[in-house]
């Protein structure tokens, strides 16, 4: 069979609506219907979404639909992620790291950042050394055709490294090797160039994403973030007064008022310092000493500064996701909890708000119209690569401040600062 001719024919069809691939290393954002310099992320949700009017050009999707024929329940979403290095500060501000107290320990990171809308020729210069931890949260809807371009801007602090990067959409059902981001099985992108992934999001739920190139190193260094897909049921009629659900439950039993993604991941400062100082990396001795939720230790987890936390090295706002949970008394809170910890398991519990586990690993527990497999509990335990959907029902809970924290109590610290760590607040207002 002559796949060569087949491929080029398919390539022509696929390219309809998209410019040609550059032949030499160049940042190259691919997005159906994207008109450069005209289209931009107008509502600042981090993506270019067709049905938000953010893609104005013609396109044809692999399934043959055009912008005029695309069924109402489908959408096209594009995101441009960059990968490289950067800095963040830990939460241990009472510890003197050499320049007095008031600033937490500086940690060198590898990471991702959101470059959606930045013109291709500007991407390298705009984003070198400006990566974030955690990576930008990716929120998608069921039936989104998601085009994700990953551009590798290189590691400024480590000019000796030429690491490629990838995106692994962790948990994506029936994944293809080419878009799975696992480097031994497919491809990853070299410095100064771009690779585009395509995902047809048919499964709602809480997933996560991370770089899978040299996974132990790149994940410890921070190349990971939240990713979740909201169900098609959200676009339908209200059920029991809810318009947003974790899954297509058909009975509203996963309905919620407010939702928060919470991701567990911790840093080993010796590993990060060795990376910064071009030393051999201590894999065997890896020990996480900075436990975090959404990239911060308490009390930074509840710092709601809108632009995020700036790092003390470059001033870049590199920690943009906090972990504060707020609700009105009576609300049902959906916690989309995932773990990408590289060394350990963690149990999360609350001070007084019971948990209802309705989903695990992006699948509802039990069939639609059936709540019999939901789990009523007060704690959930996750190892790296696991996710749960937990509903906190605040009906009958007095207003006040509660905590979501790890009952692995030795992780309630920011390294030697014996207060903080893997903890955040749940603020219930009357």
């Amino acid at each position, binding site marked *: 069979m002559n796949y060569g001719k*087949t491929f080029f024919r398919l390539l022509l069809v696929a390219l309809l609506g998209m410019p040609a691939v550059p032949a030499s290393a160049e940042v190259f954002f691919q997005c159906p219907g994207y008109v450069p310099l005209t289209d931009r992320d107008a509502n600042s949700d981090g993506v270019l979404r067709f049905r938000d009017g953010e893609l104005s050009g013609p396109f044809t999707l692999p399934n043959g639909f055009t912008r005029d024929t695309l069924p109402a329940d489908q959408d096209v979403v594009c995101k441009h992620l960059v990968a490289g290095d950067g800095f963040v500060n830990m939460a241990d501000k009472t510890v003197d790291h050499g320049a007095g107290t008031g600033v937490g320990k500086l940690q060198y990171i590898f990471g991702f950042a959101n470059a959606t809308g930045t013109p291709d020729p500007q991407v390298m210069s705009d984003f070198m050394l400006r990566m974030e931890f955690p990576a930008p949260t990716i929120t998608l809807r069921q039936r989104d055709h998601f085009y994700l371009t990953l551009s590798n801007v290189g590691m400024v602090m480590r000019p000796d490294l030429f690491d490629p990067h990838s995106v692994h959409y962790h948990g994506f059902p029936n994944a293809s090797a080419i878009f799975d981001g696992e480097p031994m099985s497919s491809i990853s992108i070299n410095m100064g160039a771009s690779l585009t992934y395509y995902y047809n999001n048919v499964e709602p739920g809480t997933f996560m994403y991370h770089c899978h190139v040299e996974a132990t190193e790149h994940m410890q260094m921070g190349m990971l973030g939240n990713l979740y897909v909201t169900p098609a049921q959200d676009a339908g009629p209200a059920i029991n007064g809810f318009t947003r659900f974790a899954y297509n439950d058909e009975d509203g039993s996963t309905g919620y008022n407010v939702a928060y993604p919470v991701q567990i991941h911790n840093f080993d400062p010796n590993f990060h310092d060795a990376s910064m100082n071009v030393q051999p990396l201590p894999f065997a001795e890896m020990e996480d000493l900075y436990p975090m939720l959404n990239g911060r230790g308490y009390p930074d987890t509840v710092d709601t500064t809108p632009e995020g936390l700036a790092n003390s090295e470059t001033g870049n706002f590199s920690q943009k996701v906090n972990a504060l949970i707020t609700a009105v008394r009576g609300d049902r809170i959906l916690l989309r909890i995932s773990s990408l910890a590289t060394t350990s398991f963690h149990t999360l519990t609350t001070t007084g708000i019971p948990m209802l586990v309705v989903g695990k690993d992006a699948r509802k527990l039990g069939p639609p119209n059936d709540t019999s497999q939901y789990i009523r509990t007060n704690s959930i335990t996750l190892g790296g690569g696991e996710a749960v959907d937990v509903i906190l029902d605040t009906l009958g809970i007095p207003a006040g401040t509660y905590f979501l924290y790890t009952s692995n109590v030795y992780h309630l610290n920011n390294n030697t600062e014996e207060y903080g760590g893997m903890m955040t607040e749940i603020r219930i207002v009357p």
Partner: protein
Amino acid sequence: MDKTKKRFRGLTGMLVAATLLLLLLPVCALAAVNGIPGPTFTLTVKTDHISTADGSNLFLWGYADGTNRAQYPGPTLIVTQGQPITVTLKNQLDVPVSIVFAGQTVTASGGIPGLLTREALKNDDPGTLAVDESTVTYTFTPTEPGTYLYSSGTDPHLQVQMGLLGALIVRPSAATATMPGCDPTDPTRVMATAYGDCRSAYDYETLFILTETDPALHTLVELGRIEEVKTTEFFPVNWFINGRGGPDTLAPYKASWLPTQPYECFTRTTPGDRVLLRIVGAGRDSHPFHTHGNNMDVIARDGRLLTTDPAIQPAPSLTAARAAEVGVVPDLAVSNFTNNTLPGATYDAIYAWTGRNLGWDVYGHDLANPALDPAICDGGIPGRVVNGFDMVTREWCADHGNPFPVARTDIKDLTFGQFYSGSPFLGSAGALPPGEGGFNPNAGFFFMWHSHNEKELTNNDIFPGGMLTMLVVEPPGTPIK
């Protein structure tokens, strides 16, 4: 990374050997779990060494099958439900040893009394004529099919770490171990079952025994300094699946260069097939085992089907079931992309890959030239229209002919994996720069299955390795057995 070249050279060497063997041997990868059949076994505890994938070796205390060398893990005992089993234990160590069989009701005789069970000494004491201290006989009748763990019941904090562990697989009774009727598109097709009905039916099975070791502990034992061992200071730096650290996990069964580590865990399947994963937490740490490519449906825990249906055996009942990626699973099965594998626990899971709803044609079919592509999603009957997944052509019909969705990056800007075929399409190979790829002879889709505690993907400070292996979804029609 400057480590990259060294790493690939080492990997390349091992994988070249592995691939050559794959191509030469007709029965080349795991379709059914390798082990020894019952109903009588003689296991002898011996010392030996194992190879770790960082090029080192570890002192081993292992169960040996009769007069063979010790092995890690111990021999996988494959028996049948309802069949009385006798395991005779002998011992060449200077310390007593024993076996406990989790989940079984065991009668032990001989040897000397121990805390958990009877233990075997190295030698029989001639002064006690009525007792043979050197031989323990364990008898039990496994009444429930499933996957179980056996391990030493003597000083287990030390002896299990030293390697005295293994798996026991109980197949359902003969009437239900294999059966037709589990494939709705071909009711005559016979599939194996793990628990006696179609909810646990599978095409291929793989065993995953997850362990970890602290080489300092093994060294002290080897030097005869057991009294200095402090298991409370256990700090593992090697991680294994079936006794091998990645990528040795991909080397063949009974690879001659791994004489004390016979078992591998490289799974091969094709779209639409069902794989049974038998996962055993045989170490002292938990491991989050992650399957790339799709979720797995965990159908049983500790040898018990996850179902509300009380009439599990022997009636092959399809009540209390729910739909899975392919076929059915028990109604209380949990779909996981990562299975939290607890120490001492076992899990059975069903995994299938279909490419459902990917949105593009994974085979790269060319609609403009149907004569070149006879597989047109018709169930093998020309003119027939199949909705959903075609079990004959093994494709998701709605995506038939849909083009590849993105323009591909120039090859000069890409880093290629050893298992990349050069093409995104299943069953197609493509051009690769010299020296790249080469370990995917059938152009399948490779997916890594591994512990997601990423630290465990190392062999004593060397990345990559440790608790990782691969699944390959081969193109339909590729011989697997």
